[in-house]
């Protein structure tokens, strides 16, 4: 047991050292002109750009738009996946009917749909949400489906004997049982929702972080491109932490040793 225990403080210290080493090495490379600043940007300027954004009102509008798109795609995609996954897992006939189509749509390179969504839903947030939904949906869907299918028959029989009707079985047994699976897929889906929002913006929009990045690319402003990416990464990490917290709160019943 003893050698498995890792000192958390040491881990954080080493993480800090690693990050600092990369940043300092990068900065030194730029300053000594080993790395061309036009291609690689400079950590110092990237930091300054983020701070400048932080103090300007316009940046918040962009950030807000991207976050709204991300959260909407995440919420809608997850909700659709839950409903459809539950339905197909409980109706073997329709699961068999839909199977090839779901596989086909899933293996399609769905980012290519972005221009089509722009035609359908315009250049506002909804074309980005639509793209995000197609990306979020499948990961969650397959997990819900699997989670529902693997519910223990003994739990079902026992709950039925205690008087549960079909709807109560879904609410009290199927859904809680699928939750473990769903949460593991939600971590991936958050990233997917961001990809949908930013790529959508990148391919046609007038606001959002993706739009900022596109603008910066137009003027070879590598620093701003990288600053945009850093901001997105921080947002994704924060959302992931929120999901972890929700997971911890909702899955208290799980044994912690694994």
């Amino acid at each position: 047991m003893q050698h498995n225990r890792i000192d958390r403080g040491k881990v954080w210290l080493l993480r800090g050292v690693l990050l600092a080493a990369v940043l300092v090495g990068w900065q030194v490379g730029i300053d000594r002109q080993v790395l061309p600043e036009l291609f690689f940007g400079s950590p110092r300027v990237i930091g300054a750009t983020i701070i400048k954004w932080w103090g300007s009102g316009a940046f918040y509008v962009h950030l807000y738009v991207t976050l709204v798109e991300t959260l909407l795609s995440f919420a809608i995609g997850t909700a659709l996946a839950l409903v459809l996954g539950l339905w197909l897992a409980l109706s073997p006939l329709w699961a068999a009917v839909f199977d090839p189509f779901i596989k086909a749509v899933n293996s399609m390179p769905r980012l290519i749909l972005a221009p089509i969504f722009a035609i359908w839903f315009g250049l506002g947030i909804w074309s980005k949400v639509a793209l995000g939904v197609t990306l979020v949906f499948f990961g969650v869907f397959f997990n819900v489906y699997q989670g529902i299918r693997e519910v223990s028959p003994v739990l079902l029989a026992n709950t039925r004997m205690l008087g549960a009707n079909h709807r109560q079985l879904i609410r009290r047994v199927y859904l809680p049982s699928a939750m473990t699976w769903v949460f593991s897929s939600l971590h991936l889906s958050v990233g997917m929702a961001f990809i949908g929002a930013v790529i959508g913006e990148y391919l046609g929009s007038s606001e959002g972080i993706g739009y900022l990045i596109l603008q910066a690319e137009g003027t070879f402003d590598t620093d701003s491109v990288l600053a945009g990416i850093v901001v997105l990464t921080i947002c994704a990490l924060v959302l992931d932490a929120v999901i972890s917290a929700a997971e911890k709160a909702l899955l208290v019943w799980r044994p912690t040793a694994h």
Partner: protein
Amino acid sequence: MNVSALAIAGQRSALALKDVTCAFPSSSGTTYVAVKNVSLTLAEGEFVSIVGPTGCGKSTLLNVAAGLLRPTCGEVFVADEPLRALNRRAGYMFQADALLPWLTARGNVALGLELGGMPKKAAAERAEGWLKRVGLAGHGDRYPHQLSGGMKKRVSLAQILVMGPKILLMDEPFSALDVQTRQLMENELLDIWSHDRKSVLFVTHDLEEAISLADRVIVLSSGPATAPIAEFEVNIPRPRDVTEIVQSPHYLQTHRRIWETLKKEVLRSYERGKAV
């Protein structure tokens, strides 16, 4: 044969299986007959054990009695009414863990009441009372993974008893426990049972357990096409202590009589297992 026994006792039947046969399609395309032409009766307030070699279709019979499985032919009567859906008068204790892992011990015990529409608070209070009766006062907030095997069985028992079933169907409920815990649970079950004398159908492969608990022991033949081949009255006086009665001459004599019959079936089942 059990009809005459009933007539003597002058009791009504709580549960009756008449000519029940269960066949399942097997993987090779043929049908596998698990149980064949089984008739048995459980009188009100009677404790009946069913013993048979492992894999002889004992659980199938309980599933039929619970209404979870419809027999291929034959009928089930509950309080002399034919059973058409789930057996609402019965509580079923499964061999495997059947507690919902995402509910606390109290939540699990309250589950059936809540499903029946009882307000959460009232259900929790009733559940707490039953937790106390099975010796788990103060453990209501624990989740199943935080409980020992014996404690989980107690929660299962409370979960079923809180519903006030007239019939208890028990499928080797204590087989996964160590010997000491098992005997403790058996005594506890007898103690709880003695208060309101529910009708109990207790399936086990352990003859010792069968005799210690029951009024009557039914021996099943080895599978496939399992059927009852003999039954024995157990006239050991109650209240019983399962740790003590195994030494009583009456117990030993009953054990010897039943074992003579059961041994043949166990050997047959063993031979078949070797052949496969």
